[in-house]
């Protein structure tokens, strides 16, 4: 890292109608540093990045690149300036191969008339090799959301850039992939490339970044060297107060119950998982860990009949279920929060209130099936307040919310129906620390009141902090279970990657 400032932003503002997303912010990026951005959901981080990448135009303010004022009119222009960007929401072409997606910008800039698919795929395999094993010829539409995120990262790494922006790249990544990414980031930084890194995971910021800038409500608060401050300071600057406890109290030995809410036996799916058996007891929060592509999501989707042809036995509160569709599952009180929020979690173009009520619009309707707008809005308002949702108006489309706030809408939708059993797939992806703690508290309260809670998360500290018991999935099988003191990152990683054959580690 040097002290040369490559990018300097001063007094920049940006509004969306009445929403003032950025209010005169300043920001400074030095050559070769890894610079973290922290801030609550809706603080304006992504908006600032979109301005730097030329996707959005600021209302006022100045951008200096190498000390020269620039107007970045389009992503193409940003590219010419050497800006690379991994978006918070993946933006890939589903009908096109992984290799072509990775090299889309290169193809665009290339002078050559013809495509050379062979070298393209070779080079793509090289870039991907370090990250994950994906065939570069597959279409992106056939990839799971986490693999898509890796492709998105690979895409940015191939850019010959001077400034690399990573907007919550690890939200859907497990520890293993995240560590690889950090290694690459460090290598790039050493080569003199400046990296802006956005994350809500404090550990990542403190382990890997050089400096951190904090934003709150569209305003720039401060920039500090990470060596000089503590995570609590950052959270305090973000939220305006110290979050006393990140994770709620766990179940005590005494509270443990033998009552079984969910009993899964010998669940099989043709190609995706085998011999899955487990139990979810009353009052506990059960976690599901595993590497990317291990099959966690598929097991859960299989149980509630969203995907696959599943055989095996599923019993809820002692009653054996014969579910043939997700509707049956909902009718039994089992709901699933999707990991792919944009793809199948929310209705981007529809109002916030309409999104929250989507699972059961009958709840906000009268006896004749007429939706009562007031009832619908007060439902959204109440759940929104619980989750600390930031919005302009409940009639605004969800697309106008920040990524983390969209996630809160998706969660609010699930909570709106008072389910008996909730599967949450990456529930806090993109959610800020404050709201995360709130969500965890809500989950704990639900569990205590008898609702079955199963959490899939790629963030091991979260699983360890929240769950009473964690099952580990490897290659479509449950490879083990950890509880109590055994619940450590090492043990889980071990079960997820190599071990597993041995019985549960008690």
């Amino acid at each position, binding site marked *: 890292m040097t002290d040369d400032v490559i990018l300097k932003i001063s007094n920049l503002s940006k509004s969306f*109608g009445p929403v003032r997303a950025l209010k005169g912010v300043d920001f400074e990026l030095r050559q070769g540093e890894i610079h973290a951005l922290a801030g609550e959901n809706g603080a304006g981080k992504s908006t600032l990045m979109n301005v730097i990448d030329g996707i959005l135009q600021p209302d006022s303010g100045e951008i200096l690149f190498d000390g020269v004022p620039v107007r970045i009119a389009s992503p193409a222009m940003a590219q010419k300036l050497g800006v690379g960007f991994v978006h918070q929401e993946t933006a890939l072409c589903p009908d096109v191969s992984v290799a072509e997606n990775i090299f889309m910008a290169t193809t665009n800039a290339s002078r050559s008339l013809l495509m050379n698919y062979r070298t393209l795929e070779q080079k793509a395999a090289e870039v991907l090799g370090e990250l994950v094993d994906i065939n570069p010829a597959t279409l992106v539409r056939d990839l799971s959301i986490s693999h898509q995120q890796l492709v998105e990262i690979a895409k940015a790494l191939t850019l010959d850039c001077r400034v690399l922006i990573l907007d919550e790249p690890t939200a859907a990544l497990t520890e293993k992939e995240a560590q690889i990414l950090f290694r690459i980031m460090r290598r790039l930084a050493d080569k003199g490339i400046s990296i802006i890194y956005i994350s809500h995971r404090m550990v990542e910021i403190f382990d890997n970044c050089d400096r951190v800038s904090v934003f709150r409500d569209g305003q720039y608060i401060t920039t500090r060297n990470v060596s000089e401050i503590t995570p609590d300071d950052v959270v305090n600057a973000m939220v305006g107060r110290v979050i006393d406890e990140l994770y709620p109290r766990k179940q005590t030995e005494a509270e443990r119950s033998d009552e079984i809410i969910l009993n899964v036996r010998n669940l099989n799916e043709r190609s995706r998982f085998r011999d899955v058996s487990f139990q979810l007891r009353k009052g506990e929060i059960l976690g599901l860990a595993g590497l990317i592509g291990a099959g966690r999501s598929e097991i859960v989707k299989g149980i509630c009949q*969203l995907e696959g042809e599943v055989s095996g036995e599923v019993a809820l509160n002692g009653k054996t279920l014969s579910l043939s*569709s*997700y*509707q049956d*599952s*909902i009718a039994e009180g089992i*709901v*699933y929060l*999707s990991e792919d929020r944009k*793809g*199948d*979690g*929310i*209705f*981007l*173009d*529809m109002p916030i209130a*309409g999104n929250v009520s*989507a*699972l*059961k*619009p*009958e709840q906000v*309707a009268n006896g004749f*099936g*007429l*939706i009562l707008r007031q009832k619908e809005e007060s439902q959204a308002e109440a759940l929104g307040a619980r989750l600390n949702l930031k919005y302009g108006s409940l009639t605004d489309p969800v697309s106008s919310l920040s990524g983390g706030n969209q996630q809160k809408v998706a969660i609010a*939708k699930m909570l709106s129906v008072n389910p008996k059993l909730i599967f949450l797939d990456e529930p806090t992806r993109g959610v800020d620390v404050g709201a995360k703690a709130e969500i965890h508290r809500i989950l704990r309260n639900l569990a205590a009141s008898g609702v079955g809670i199963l959490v899939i998360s790629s963030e091991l500290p979260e699983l360890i902090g929240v769950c009473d018991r964690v099952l580990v999935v490897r290659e479509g099988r449950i490879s083990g279970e950890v509880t109590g003191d055994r619940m450590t990152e090492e043990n889980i990683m071990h079960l997820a990657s190599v071990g597993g054959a041995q019985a549960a580690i008690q």
Partner: protein
Amino acid sequence: MRETGLIAIILVLFIVMSFASPYFLTWVNMRAMVMAFAVEGIVVVGMTILLISGGIDLSVGSVTALAMVIAGWLFLNGVDPWVASAISIAACTGIGAFMGFFVTRVGLHHFIVSLAIMVIARGACLLGTGGRPLGLFTLPPEFKFIGQGSIGPIPVVIIIFLAVVIGFDFMLRRTTLFRKVFYTGSNEKAAAYSGIRTKRVIFFTTTLCSALCGVAGIIYMARFGSAQPTFGIGMELNVIAAAVIGGASLKGGSGTIFGAILGAVLLSVVSSSLALLDVSVYWQDIIRGSILLTAVSIDHYLVKKRA
């Protein structure tokens, strides 16, 4: 409101026209103008709902014609006209269900399924009539009343039209059933993940659109006292255009009945005005297309500005 721009454009047209022609702002002309799109407006309602759910239907013209042919043929073969109409509407509903089957079960695209049905239904019209229009002059007066009669000064056709429009507009805005149509069209996968039986929803909207074509066909039959196998050729483009002008998205998820009807009004006012001003037929298409393009651009500009 999304429709303000369109209303403004239509108002401007009205003001210009009332200066340009002394006959424009007469009761009789207004009545004629509404009559000109009222029946097609019923089809516009069905199409708008289908578009919102993410579908499209090219067969509306043929199916409307087939409704006339089926009811007319039955009537000529001694069936009571009311019964014949009911059978005919049921048959159209069946056609819609057939399309719905191909879309939701076989997995084909609405476009191609409805294109095939457009051809098949037109063929059925030819077969049922031997290519000759059916003269239904002998329809009883109480039946013709639904197409030709008036209650007070208001034609029955307009009353039916208003009832359909207001009814569906209300339902689309307020009922849970139709809300699911929006969810499905906005993001089918997210709707499925919200427990909505999206295939049923699409099946429903597809069927509803054809059923409304059936209703329109019966009213046309009562109105014209005949069943023409070639009726309604090219209707689909008109109907889709009205919905799209009125703000419906071809990608699904958005649209209103009110807007779509305003779209139909706009198209109709332009046509009427050109005829009223006796613009040369060789110029009419050029002017009509240009006004359409201008109006849509202005509306787009106004909507964007407000947002």
